[in-house]
């Protein structure tokens, strides 16, 4: 991704260690989206993406963080959501982002679903450092 001319004016870090933190993370995300002038529909997409990413952390790594920050590119405003954990990493990244694939008996919508509802999606995962998913959603 070409690095946008980013201007970070706020950063929120929500520790995610249990299913209850999933709600906290998405409430924070929706709040930030609304403050940045996202429409109700866009804010819902942001909250939904955060919900899926936070759930992945709880389910596969046990704990991690959701970091939220605003970015600006010219007149465009957006939100970056970073979901990071120090869990076991993802064995087969290509498979994990394929629609319908799940190792947990889920719907297999997690990562591929998130990828569909955001504008930019990056994932880095290995056994040493765990998994970091970075997504960006721009305000329309």
């Amino acid at each position, binding site marked *: 991704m070409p690095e946008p001319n980013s201007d970070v004016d706020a950063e929120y870090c929500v520790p995610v260690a249990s*299913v*209850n933190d*999933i*709600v906290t993370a*998405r*409430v924070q995300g*929706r709040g930030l989206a609304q403050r940045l002038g996202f429409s*109700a*529909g866009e*804010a*819902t*997409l942001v*909250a*939904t993406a955060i*919900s*899926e990413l936070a*759930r992945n952390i709880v389910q596969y790594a046990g704990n991690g963080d959701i970091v939220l920050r605003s970015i600006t590119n010219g007149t465009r405003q957006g939100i970056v959501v970073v979901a990071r954990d120090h869990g076991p990493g993802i064995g087969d990244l290509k498979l994990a982002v394929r*629609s319908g694939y799940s190792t947990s008996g*889920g*719907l297999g*919508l*997690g990562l*591929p*679903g*998130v990828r*569909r*509802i955001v504008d930019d999606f990056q994932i880095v995962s290995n056994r040493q450092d765990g998994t970091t998913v970075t997504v960006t959603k721009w305000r329309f």
Partner: protein
Amino acid sequence: MAVPILKQSQYLIATIQSALSDEDLLSLQAALVDKVGKYRSRGVIVDVTALDVLDSFASRTLRDIAHIIRLRGAETVIVGVQPEVAFAMVQLGITLEKVSTALDLEEGLAYLDKKLQHARAEL
């Protein structure tokens, strides 16, 4: 936060009041399955008007509730999926197929009444 479940004649109405944790959703599932037997209910309405996010876990739990209740001999209808929520669900790839939905509580009750009439007519 526990979801209140109201018994109204042959139906159970569960009105979700605020964002639910995974545990709340699973307790709702258990409570409904239990109460359908206890009250011999013929229909269940789950009102999700207050939910601002229906992610894959919540959707799967709602789908499971509908299927489990059907195995218990009653019909479930999900009512009140908000427009933005519906939009996000479809983009995420969630369709809630084979689960009945209705616009609001009123429509949900009308749907269940109709279903029950059909069932009686067939007897």
